[in-house]
């Protein structure tokens, strides 16, 4: 049979389990795509061909012998290159670390290996996950990450290769990371599902630290349903990461026996691009068939300033050696070579004030969200921007992004799924943000939405290898 490229994992795994699709042949197909299409999109740092084929042969043998491990067994995937891998370089997207090999496997890598998934590539990312303050796409050792829907536009960042690789059918799924926007942004720009779990749901052991109290790892995949399957494989307590939630998590997106209760922040799309706003309003109309939708306000707090100050202070410390040693002079984006200096002057009392205000922010958002299952908004205010253009002209955090600031600052889960296209053929997305620990609720909403729409079944046209 024809090798499935954009087949959701839910379907692909059935075919693998039934012996209709060979993990070895499947892996060969995706390796070829990674090697041929990947470089055109600047989506790949390293293709792990020999490791992948070894894993694939093992998976095929196990499945043939009846030792089926579960829905990711024999399924190829790609890792954002901030996840440490033994014997494979881990670059953090940064030229000075092009050949660096770390002596540990990240917990997410280990868990996916144990689930039988096949690591096919380390995927490109913005250098230091955007932690140096980049302002334009050419901020990675692999070059500006190009969007499969239009290679003259950007993928979003910082999990850029993860978004591009899933959208282009280079891997069935990828793992990315989000501190503030780094999963939702590429999911939006590339027209795929991207899931940011509750802070602490997934172990960060072995992942580059940008900001200890904001960093999360999560999947990017074809559908919300796939995100749930992948999250179950990587979630759970880990003694190597003391912030992990002790309760194990299982994917169970059972809709409630009532309508979903969805809230929208008043005016949240007012300053969005008109086509983004239009698609969001149509998505709300669709959701209105299965949910009550209510406009709400959040109390007046400096959400962006709080989360940005936390990010600035922790990143200044996390990267202190790299900044002080002058390593940043070797980075790709000119602005990343001096951008981190400003935050080295941040006062300890201002960081602590931000952490104290974080408590107020958590209380305010918890109270506002209590009657609702989720808050929804456009995943981004604008579609993918041109590859050579600055996407922000001011310092990070100076722009308005209350959903990103409150969501990440409070550690809330969120998913972005496509909700339409612009007149120029670029995808747009809707983000569904939930209460902490309630990933299944937002997965149920996203799954229901994807059952009512077909945006996620559309794929970019790329010259085949």
């Amino acid at each position, binding site marked *: 049979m024809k090798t499935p490229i954009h087949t959701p994992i839910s379907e692909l795994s059935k075919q693998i389990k039934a012996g209709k699709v060979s993990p070895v042949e499947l892996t060969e197909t995706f390796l070829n795509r990674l090697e041929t299409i990947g470089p055109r999109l600047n989506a790949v740092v390293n293709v792990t061909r020999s490791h992948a084929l070894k894993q694939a042969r093992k998976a095929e043998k196990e499945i043939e012998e009846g030792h089926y491990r579960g829905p990711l067994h024999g399924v190829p995937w790609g890792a954002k290159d901030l996840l440490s891998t033994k014997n494979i370089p881990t670059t953090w997207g940064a030229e000075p670390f092009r050949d660096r090999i770390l002596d540990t496997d990240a917990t997410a890598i280990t868990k996916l290996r144990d689930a039988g998934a096949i690591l096919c590539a380390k995927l490109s990312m913005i250098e230091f996950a955007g932690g140096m*303050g980049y302002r334009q796409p050419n901020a990675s050792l692999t070059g500006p990450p190009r969007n499969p829907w239009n290679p003259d536009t950007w993928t979003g960042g910082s999990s850029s290769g993860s978004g591009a690789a899933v959208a282009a059918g280079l891997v069935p799924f990828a793992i990315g990371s989000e501190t503030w926007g780094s999963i939702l942004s590429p999911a939006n720009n590339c027209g795929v599902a991207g899931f940011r779990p509750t802070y602490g749901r997934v172990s960060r052991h072995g992942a580059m630290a940008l900001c200890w*109290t904001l960093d999360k790892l999560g999947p990017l995949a074809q559908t919300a349903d796939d995100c749930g399957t992948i999250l179950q494989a990587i979630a759970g307590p880990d*003694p190597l990461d*003391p912030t992990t939630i*002790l309760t194990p998590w299982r994917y169970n997106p059972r809709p409630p026996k009532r309508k979903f209760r969805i809230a929208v922040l008043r005016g949240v799309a007012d300053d969005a691009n008109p086509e983004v706003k239009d698609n969001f309003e149509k998505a709300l109309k669709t959701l209105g068939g299965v949910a009550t939708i209510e406009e709400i306000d959040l109390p007046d*707090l*400096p959400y*962006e*300033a*709080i989360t*940005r*100050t936390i990010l*600035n202070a922790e990143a200044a410390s996390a990267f202190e050696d790299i900044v002080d040693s*002058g390593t940043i*002079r070797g980075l790709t984006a000119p*602005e990343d*070579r*001096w*951008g981190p*200096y*400003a*935050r*080295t*002057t*941040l*006062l300890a009392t*201002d960081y*602590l*004030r*931000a*952490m*104290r*205000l*974080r*408590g*107020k922010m*958590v209380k305010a958002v918890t109270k506002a969200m209590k009657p609702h299952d989720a808050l929804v908004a456009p995943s981004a205010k604008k579609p993918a921007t041109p590859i050579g253009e600055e996407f922000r002209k*001011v*310092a*990070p*955090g*100076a722009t308005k992004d209350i959903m990103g600031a409150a969501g990440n600052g409070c550690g809330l889960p969120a998913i972005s799924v496509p909700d339409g296209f612009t007149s120029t053929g670029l995808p747009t997305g809707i983000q569904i943000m939930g209460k902490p620990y309630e990933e299944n609720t937002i997965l149920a909403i996203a799954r229901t939405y994807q059952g009512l729409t077909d945006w996620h079944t559309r794929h970019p046209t790329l010259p085949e290898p």
Partner: protein
Amino acid sequence: MTTPNREAETLLALIQARYGDRVTPDELEEIRKGLDAILDGARAMHAIKLENGDEPHQFFKPHGDPRQ
């Protein structure tokens, strides 16, 4: 209280003392804009009243939590 410009100038002087040999005048001007954004954020945060008992929202645990 110092004026915003004085604060930015003071912090810029600190950056020059630490990293002045690594940055050009144009880069310093961009760094100044970064300082302005940081100071704007600090001012926004200082506009919110905090009580003495408003603790940082982070939880320190002594080593050896029996639940772990």
